[in-house]
């Protein structure tokens, strides 16, 4: 469903991503791993339209999406989280989820002002969806708290819930386990698997936590200094000499 071919991204003299290719099939969890500064986040930024890649192409359901603005890409069903959590801090938890459902709502100003039946129906649906996902990630009690006041782990979960209410086809998670304690990481593990199993969402995952990656990934892509180093099933990658030398060896 997603195909990245020979993606390159150059920042001035720095080639942050060099000829990276990867593909994601329906119903699959694909991980990108690599040492710090390898260019993982940059690959995400290109896929989500935040950067315009300097080379290569990205196809989503056989449609080219490189060079499209980020908000259009997300409307296609390609939604991401951020390495450093980006919530709407001063808004409440449910408001965060309602903002994300912008496209499912009736945004006609007059309909909204008059509270037309269609407007109210869609608003209620959005609330129901928000309720469902808050419950799913265990934040229902905190629905009316300001998002910025949540604990770190809760913010991470809220960010995922916020992506899920948009009903994406492909979810891109940038180091979702960073800063979580082992118990939280285990829950996250379960959640990601369930996203794939129960909600039929494909996941691209950037992660440093090896146990998490090895456990849940269907396939893994390793990049090092912007260049693809290896790819394959967790088992293959674990055994790859280059990978052991470049990455696993040092951690």
């Amino acid at each position, binding site marked *: 469903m997603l195909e990245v071919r020979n993606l390159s991204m150059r920042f001035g003299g720095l080639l942050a991503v060099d000829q990276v290719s990867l593909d994601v099939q329906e119903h699959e969890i694909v991980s990108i791993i690599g040492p710090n500064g390898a260019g993982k986040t940059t690959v995400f930024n290109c896929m989500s339209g935040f950067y315009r890649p300097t080379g290569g192409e990205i196809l989503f359901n056989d449609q080219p999406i490189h060079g499209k603005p980020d*908000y259009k890409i997300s409307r296609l069903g390609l*939604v991401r989280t*951020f390495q450093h959590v980006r*919530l*709407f801090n*001063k808004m409440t938890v449910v408001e965060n989820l309602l903002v994300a459902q912008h496209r499912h709502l009736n945004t006609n100003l007059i309909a*909204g*002002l008059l509270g037309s039946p269609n407007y109210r129906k869609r608003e209620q649906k959005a609330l129901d969806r928000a309720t469902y996902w808050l419950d799913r990630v265990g934040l229902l009690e905190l629905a009316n708290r300001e998002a910025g006041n949540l604990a770190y782990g809760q913010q991470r979960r809220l960010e995922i819930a916020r992506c899920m209410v948009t009903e994406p086809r492909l979810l891109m998670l940038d180091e979702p386990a960073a800063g979580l304690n082992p118990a939280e990481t285990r829950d996250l593990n379960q959640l990601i698997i369930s996203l794939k199993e129960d909600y039929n969402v494909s996941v691209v995952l950037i992660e440093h936590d090896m146990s998490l990656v090895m456990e849940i990934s269907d396939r893994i892509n390793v990049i090092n200094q912007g260049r693809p180093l290896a790819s394959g099933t967790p088992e293959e990658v674990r055994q790859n000499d280059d990978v052991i030398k470049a990455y696993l060896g040092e951690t």
Partner: protein
Amino acid sequence: MAAQNLKHALFCAIITLIIAYPILGLNLEAEGTQVVLEGADTVTVVSIALAAIVVFLFQLFRDTIMASLGRIPRLNPLANREPMEQGRRQRFETIALVLLVMAALAWPFFVSRGSVDLATLVLIYVMLALGLNVVVGLAGLLDLGYVAFYAVGAYTFALLSQYFGISFWLALPLGACLAALFGLVLGFPVLRLRGDYLAIVTLGFGEIIRILLNNMTWLTGGPNGIGGIPDPTLFGMEFGRRIKEEGNSSFHEVFGIAYSSEHKIIFLYLIALVLAVFTAVVIRRFTKMPVGRSWEALREDEIAARSLGLSRTSVKLSAFTIGAFFAGFAGTVFASKQGFISPESFVFLESAIILAIVVLGGMGSQIGVILAAIAVVILPELAREFSEFRMLIFGAAMVLMMVWRPQGLLPMRRIHIELKKQE
């Protein structure tokens, strides 16, 4: 630490002297054909010295003073009370609002003409501040040229009535829509700008509009302004002593009461009140709608908002357009109230005052903004005797406010949304 404070305080005192003495302590006097420099009288010199001492002492004990300022809110008996329970608060708010509106409707009949006139001005500022609150408080776009849209509303009415004899009621939507159109037009070039850059461009836009109005003499009369702007009518009834327009009747004759110039003033006040309430209600509704939420999302985190499919273009443009729309309303009412407008009413200081109201009131909060509008318009009137120092007092109040309550009088409170878990 102490030595550092002393040094800093000395420095500030000396700066005070350096600035104040040449400006206040030296006078240029004309003696025949010659201009000579003279020292001011002793009172001035002593005051300057006193001012320097005050600055010195303040800077020396600055930390202590600031700390005690921070303690003031704790003296507030309401500060630590439990927040009211949801349902009760809503009922309480509804009742309070209804009482407030009823009082606002009734009181002009009991007070002096001047107070009603002033209250109309307050309401105009309430409209302006609520509109700017959309742009600055909710969408987080610092707009320093907001007065331009106010001017567009006022001039639309003035010009239409002058050239086409259009009445207030027709000009009201036209003025607001034209102002909204200008908001949209300004929105396009500043789409990519944020923060300081946006502030500078909007500032420039405000000035452009004012200078255009000043220089297009053939259309707007330039600095001479436009006079003879008609008063609003009530179902074709005019409020003047004599009927100006063919086909209209006169209010006092229809009702068989004696003519009083107060009727018109009260009527204008009531119109302003209705429009201000309308503005508040509509904007309040917006904040609970997808548009309002997207404004706030953009303010909070533009990148995240875009990653969720919000288009920066439409969100920003809608904020500018809707904010400008209400400024157009206010402008039309203003033109009608004054009967005469000139570019002088739409200088940058106006934008600054409206912005000050929004910031003082607490960004995004409606009640706060309304209270601040009342304070900012009425206090200078009360302090008429000190009118020379109006700006000084105003500035000092702003500084104090920002130190003491940087979040504004009444910071915005989030809307509580009840969620029911479905089985």
